[in-house]
């Protein structure tokens, strides 16, 4: 700021102008532009939008966590959390939302997410609807900024800050508990369904495992999701297996498949029985429940550190 010293009066004038400007021409009430994650200018609403369409399950979840559930008028067919979403109008899926349905809901805010085809988002914008596009970050660290962004665009900044503070506190507790662990168990994540699908290094699940004090064996794969090879599992010999399952029935079926048919017998985790269920629904949505999943994983990987709480 040393450069400002010789121009003291000028700086003062500038400051005065800045203070004065909002009162001119009612700029105070007028929309101010922010940018969405595509870098497109977006007029910031002056108050909380009344009719919000969410184009992704995690956005829906965050909107509800911010107390905006009553203002959500459209969600995707994958939005099933919290259960109150069941009665909200469906706009279609992530890659095939129906533009006509969105238009008919007459929204004053549409929140899109990466995963929605950009061409489609562009088409909705051309109808004159206010579309705010959010990008997913690389790891868990981008969850809090995401919540802050949604809080900003829905003008619930204070609630978003409180939500983020609570989550930050819990993340800190897990980080502290796993900071000085002696050994990091090797973890294989199974997405139960067809074959040995797992999460690669670009998935935030990889980040979850790392922060929970484990080591994802598929971490070196430069992909989000990948089909893992049998011989590599045998070679990696994971100590723990997490099965992402929709229900305990699915989990049992997945464990059964792994033990009998997957063709990877004798892996450490199978001998020790350290095969655990992780809620696929919570783990696959980039929302607040990821912190629940993190706590659960940390407890399963290091029971001694978290007081044996599963």
């Amino acid at each position, binding site marked *: 700021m040393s450069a400002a010293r010789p121009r003291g009066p000028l700086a003062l004038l500038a400051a005065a102008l800045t203070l004065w400007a909002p009162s001119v021409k009612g700029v105070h009430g007028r929309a101010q532009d922010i940018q969405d994650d595509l870098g497109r200018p977006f007029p910031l609403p002056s108050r909380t939008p009344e009719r919000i369409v969410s184009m992704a399950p995690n956005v829906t979840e965050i909107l509800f966590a911010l107390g905006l559930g009553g203002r959500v008028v459209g969600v995707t067919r994958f939005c099933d959390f919290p259960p109150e979403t069941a009665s909200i109008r469906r706009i*279609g*899926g992530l890659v*095939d939302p129906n533009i*006509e349905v969105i*238009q008919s809901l*007459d929204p004053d805010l549409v929140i899109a997410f990466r995963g929605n085809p950009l*061409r*489609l988002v562009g*088409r909705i914008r051309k*109808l004159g609807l206010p579309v705010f596009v959010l990008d997913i970050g690389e790891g868990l660290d981008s969850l809090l900024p995401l919540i802050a962004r949604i809080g900003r665009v829905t003008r619930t900044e204070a609630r978003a800050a409180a939500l983020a503070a609570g989550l930050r506190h819990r993340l800190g507790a897990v980080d502290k508990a796993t900071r000085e662990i002696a050994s990091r168990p090797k973890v294989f994540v199974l997405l139960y369904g067809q074959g040995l699908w797992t999460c690669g290094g670009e998935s935030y699940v990889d980040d979850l495992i790392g922060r929970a004090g484990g080591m994802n064996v598929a971490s070196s794969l430069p992909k989000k999701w990948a089909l893992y090879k049998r011989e590599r599992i045998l070679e990696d010999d994971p100590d723990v297996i997490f099965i992402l399952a929709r229900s305990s029935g699915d989990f049992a079926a997945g464990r059964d498949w792994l033990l009998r048919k997957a063709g990877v017998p004798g892996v450490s985790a199978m001998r020790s029985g350290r095969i655990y269920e992780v809620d696929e629904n919570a783990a696959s949505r980039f929302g607040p429940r990821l912190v629940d999943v993190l706590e659960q994983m940390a407890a399963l990987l290091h029971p001694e550190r978290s007081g044996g709480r599963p």
Partner: protein
Amino acid sequence: MSRKTGRRVFWIACIVLCLAGFLVSILTGPVRTTPGDLLRFIQEPDRVQAAIFIDLRLARAVLAFLVGAALALSGAILQGYFRNPMADPFVVGVSSGASLGAVVAAALGFEAAAFGFSGPGLLAFLSGLGIVSLVYALSLRRGGSKVETFLLTGIAAGALASALTSFFLFMRSDSYDQAVFWLLGSFQLAEWGQAAAIAPWIVLCLLGSVWLGRDMDLLALGDETAQALGSPVRRVRKAFLAMSALLAALAVAVSGIIGFVGLVVPHWVRILIGPGHRVLFVASALAGGTFLLYCDLLARNILPAELPIGVITAAVGAPFFLYLLHKKR
């Protein structure tokens, strides 16, 4: 039924079906609307309904009609050009070339829009025309202007372009919806800008092909005979080839690859009204547009999620085509 009555029935049926198709298109969609809603909207327009009726449904119907007309006309021209009933816009490589351009553009994140086309649409258009020019140049070098050489060169170039397309799609596994769009076609993102961008060219090509229709009739007798009868064969052939390539590339650029329309519609029309090319061209355009209008209606209404339109054109077109073909024999 005499050919004359047959023709009259064809024209009346086509026009009635076409108008009815537009009306049904405007009235149906995932949001329930009644004819009463439409009448009320015409009396006092409101913003949301204007977007649904005009910006979404009508724009889509118009674009589907234009693309259907372009593909059918392109097919009619190529079948006459090659004197071969198997010819369609795919055979000369336009479609594969265009989809390659689109997929490469999408993979490289090329988004600059111009002339009413999206970035991939623009590149689709250019690469579609590029492939045809290449095929044409290659076949001129080797075998004079032999039709077989041209067809085979087109098929080979098309296969190469398809392979490259698949490669790019495979490398970017997150662009699945893009892949479905470009390989099976869709009007989901139809907008007025696209219709306005392609309409003038389609009209020009239609007029041009009708104007040269008699020359195409002469070509059916063989190039030498046509030449002897005073038709400037080489120039006529070039003009027709350029028009058919332009039409197919325009269609792919706005809607992805939609198969079967260009192959089948001209056959239907020929069976119903005879082989005279002037009438055949106009009738093919009208019938192709109407056909695609109805296919799009099915694509967006029979399931909760939209079907790619290429699935419908083949599923509806093939059985009807077989029926007509065998009834005729």
